[in-house]
């Protein structure tokens, strides 16, 4: 079964990416984790994400385009990246979720991937 792991990090944690003192340990943890998931054979896809202040949000309301800088809502925890993994069951997905560095600094959400909807005739 496919599950998406959503890695949510605090602002402080995300800031480590650009802190010369803290960046090496930050990246060492994430690259070791990503490498281990990859060699386990469970990885389907995944990516890290730039911080939310690089986001642009688009909405259409009453036929009008509304374009905003940044994410729609401010929050303390921010999406830092995601993996889609293929594992036998939820318990295995939770094991991989617990090993993500975000689990001890922010959180790791585990969601089953929706199978494609039945074809329309």
């Amino acid at each position: 079964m496919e599950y998406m792991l959503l890695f949510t990090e605090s602002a402080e944690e995300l800031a480590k990416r650009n802190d010369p003192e803290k960046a090496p340990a930050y990246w060492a943890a994430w690259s070791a984790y990503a490498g281990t998931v990859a060699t386990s054979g469970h990885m389907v896809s995944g990516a890290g994400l730039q911080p939310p202040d690089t986001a642009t949000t688009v909405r259409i309301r009453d036929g009008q385009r509304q374009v905003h800088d940044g994410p729609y809502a401010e929050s303390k925890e921010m999406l830092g990246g995601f993996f889609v993994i293929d594992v036998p069951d939820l318990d295995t997905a939770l094991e991989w979720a617990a090993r993500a560095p975000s689990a001890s600094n922010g959180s790791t959400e585990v969601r089953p991937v929706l199978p494609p909807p039945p074809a329309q005739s």
Partner: protein
Amino acid sequence: MAATEIDHAIVAAARDSYSQLVAFLTARAGGDFSAAEDALGEAFLAAMKQWPAEGIPAKPEAWLITTARRRLVDSQRRGETRSRLEGQLLVALEDAQELADSEADFPDERLRLLFVCTHPAIDPSARAPLSLQSVLGLDAARIASAFLVSPAAMSQRLVRAKSKIRAAGIPFHVPGPEEWPERLEFVMDAIYVAFNSGWETMLDPDSPDDGLAEEAVWLGRLLVRLAPDEPEPLGLLALMLHCHARRQARRGKDGGFIPLLRQETRLWSKPMMNEADELIRQAATRRTPGRFQLEAAIQSVHAARAVTGLIDWPMIVRFYETLMTLTPAIGARIGHALSRSEIHGAEEGLRCLDSVKGSLISEHQPYWVAMAHLLKSAGRLEESSEAYRKAIGLTENPAVRAFLISENS
């Protein structure tokens, strides 16, 4: 009396006697574990309403039993409980009344309840969690966290197991002594899982939740009291006490993880180590070695460093060799390899680890930690770095992760 004092009294009653009360009620409700739990839950709710107004009763447990029993009878009248329970409920009523009137302690039925929870008819994956819930009153969410499964799935597993107890008519009695070791194994596994999950959170200074290891030690003591003639519960309690004795030494001033061999022994708790060693001696008089006794004995050799300043590695190797004849567990073979390397060098340790192959190891964090450590000691830095990365990727604990990253740089 202040409301908080009443709350404390209720919490204390729940903490000390929840499992005893559930076991007592279940024994007298024809083994209907869920009904007993529901009734007791309602009795606690009633206590929260009535005790602040009326004061704490002289015998809180007897009050709770009497109230719970009334709820059982009420729910039965409403047709929620099957009629075959009627006679047994009346017995419970009389028992509870006697209890409230007498000065005697009520009988401890928890051992019987433990044997029900570990009955072969119950799904093996539910036995350990069910034992934890029934004897400690841990809620499904905490048990789920300890076993790392979703709380919803754990609740379902527990509910299914409880209805199986009722539907299959699993007898509420203590089996013959020949069945004890096998049944107790599930109970001991449950306690040890709880201990380790508590131990892990204690490594994290930001974690508010450090109670589970203490609860596990408490449970270990309870098991020793309930089954005083069995050696393995003594071993389990000794093992937990030896590990628990080192909790102050496991973290540095900066919060960093400190592995066993680098810990300052003056930070270890002497009374706990002494108690553990005494338990090991007691267990040894039964002349039936077991997994927990051996693991405790290994920790006891480490503990001796606090006195002698030395570690008797040949002794540890011998304990691991015996342990490997009792259990196929990968942890024993890793421990064996590491202790051999202390005597004969890193290459010998790696040779021992070579025999541990297959799919078992690919996601086994301690294996990769041992591998990384031995490769580094052997000067095989490129391979060691690869093993460290694997170990880091499999680590849940942030302090251990930070430690491994620093070892690899």
